[in-house]
């Protein structure tokens, strides 16, 4: 198992290296484009252009340029956004990460609990009215666009009913966990629920299907012949095996969301996370920030994948030797 973990993370590091080279090449070595002009932004004066050329070593060979870039990113942390009047890129990303992590982790907990509970209930109660009812609820969650749902939630809680039922809802925005855990949770509650609703529906549906399939497996018949209780058969045997594909899906979704896919939720609820940062940078064509967030996103997606694979191996002994 330890060997497997080491191998898996070794592979992740290699993938990250490859991605960084690729991103570097796209941004700095696209033929026919002057990278200095792109980094300096539209209408930059010659002095700025000269400064950019020097700091990124554009007169040097490509491998040196790559190393200088990585130094700016990971060693001196002084990659600068010229479009945005010289703000440093890395601190911006570092400020945004906790916001996105708070949003996604909280939502993930809610959607996993909800999704597993709903899926198990529906799968175990198949043939009764509970199953279609729960699934209808799931379809409802899946079919609402996050952006629209967020706007409606805001309209109701911030305007229409803010003076009565929802007077406890704080204004949009983010409060750091270190500053006030209570306010942190309160500010994030509605974003969490909004984001979780979509995924809970998908996960419930998927788990129900897996569970129904598992309950028809031979090993469940064996478990019954052993004289185990239905409850134990459901949870320890059928559900335990059904969770394996759920976990791998979860890793992918989680990685993508932390990597910036929670953009819409962040924008609607005014949360200054990585998604929102990328969104703004794209609007201004702020190349250094875009590059920073792309690398950051790649890091989380790859990391999440590696974690999932390790978890998967813990859950499913059959993949450990692969």
């Amino acid at each position, binding site marked *: 198992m330890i060997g497997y973990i080491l191998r898996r993370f070794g592979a992740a590091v290699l993938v990250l290296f490859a991605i960084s080279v690729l991103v570097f090449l796209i941004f700095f070595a696209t033929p026919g484009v002057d990278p200095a002009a792109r980094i300096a932004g539209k209408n930059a004066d010659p002095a700025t252009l000269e400064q950019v050329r020097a700091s990124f070593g554009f007169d040097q060979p490509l491998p040196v340029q790559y190393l200088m870039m990585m130094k700016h990113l990971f060693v001196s942390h002084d990659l600068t956004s010229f479009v945005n009047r010289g703000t440093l890129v890395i601190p911006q990303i570092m400020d945004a990460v906790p916001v996105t992590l708070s949003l996604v982790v909280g939502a993930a907990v809610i959607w996993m609990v909800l999704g597993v509970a709903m899926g198990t209930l529906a799968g175990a109660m198949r043939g009764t009215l509970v199953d279609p009812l729960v699934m209808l609820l799931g379809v409802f969650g899946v079919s609402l666009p996050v952006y629209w749902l967020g706007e409606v939630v805001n309209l109701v809680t911030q305007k229409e009913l803010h003076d009565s039922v929802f007077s406890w809802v704080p204004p949009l925005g983010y409060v750091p966990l270190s500053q006030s855990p209570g306010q942190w949770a309160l500010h994030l509650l509605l974003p969490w629920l909004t984001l979780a609703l979509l995924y809970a529906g998908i996960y419930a549906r998927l788990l129900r299907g897996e569970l129904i399939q598992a309950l028809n497996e*031979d*090993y469940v018949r064996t478990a019954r*012949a*052993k004289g185990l209780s239905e409850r134990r058969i459901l949870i320890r045997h059928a559900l*335990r*095996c059904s969770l394996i594909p759920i976990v791998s899906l979860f890793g992918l979704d989680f990685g993508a969301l932390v990597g910036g896919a929670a953009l819409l939720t962040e924008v609607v609820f005014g949360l200054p996370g990585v998604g929102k940062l990328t969104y703004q940078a794209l609007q201004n064509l702020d190349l250094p920030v875009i590059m920073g967030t792309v690398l950051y996103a790649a890091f989380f997606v790859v990391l999440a994948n590696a974690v999932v694979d390790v978890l998967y191996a813990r859950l499913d002994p059959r993949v450990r030797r692969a």
Partner: protein
Amino acid sequence: MPDQPILEVDDLRVRFRTGGGHFTAVDGLSFSVRPGEVLGVVGESGSGKSVSMLGVLGLIRTPNAEISGKVVFRGRDLLALKDREMRAVRGREIAMIFQDPMTALTPVYTVGWQIAEQIRAHERISKREARDRAVRLLDEVGIPAPGKRVDSYPHEFSGGMRQRVVIAMALSCNPGLLIADEPTTALDVTTQAQILDLMRRLRTDHGSAIVMITHDMGVVSEIADEVLVMYGGRAVERGARRDVFHAPRHPYTWGLLDSVPRVGGPRVRRLPTIPGTPGASAGGCPFADRCTHRHAACEEVPALTGGSGHLDACWLPEEGRERIRRGDRSGPEASPARQSARAADEER
């Protein structure tokens, strides 16, 4: 009272409600098993062997099934037991193993864990003790290095070894009756023989009665004391192995016996098969549509009757069945033409 049956099934019926109407999978089946005895239940696929045994254990779970009759095990009617009482019987007093050892175990737990789970479902013993017993059981069924293999996962065993694990698990609570549903069908011939050997040995050591379900007369001849031949959900012949093999009475049994390669005889590529497709004929004798001896009387369902423990359900005259059998279905030995055809087959 050693001759008191441990299991007595009386007029068991299982009907499934299907899309259009009803399908009777088991139609008035009666048999009994004495302690330590091996009953071979044989018949083509679809003849209701599995369904009847699942019915005995209360493992038919679809709400579309109607089950009636009496299943008396050690003096209690199992069909009348509550769920919880039935669970205490399953796995402890009656164990059941299934055809495909590759899928019969939960893939995510070690075999030791799964054996211990069964023991601990029925007995109050510590995890440690349950594990020790699992090691002993694995040793007993011939798993090499059981102390190490107890922590292996099902996928780390071959098919034959996995079936041994399944057998070890079934025996973990010393059941009075073991129902084995085609335990060797999914295995290759050599492994089949080893598993049958093992079951014969365990039967002597543990004294469990065994119901051995199979579609293979060869398996029955190797292990059974009593034989029950099923067709279309009904018993068509029942008796001691010697009688059924040496003086088979029912045309369906004749067909089954003719389609078995003779032990020690030359290997044939193509065995004679029973003509027609399996399935009970509507009304009358269930075998009528495929029977070459069908006559007017067969419009009525023949009852299972006979003397001295050898019964059959057929309207043919009591006497002279062997002559009727040879009459128009000459056995492979009797026909020289067939012998040369077989020799030709052998050459190829």
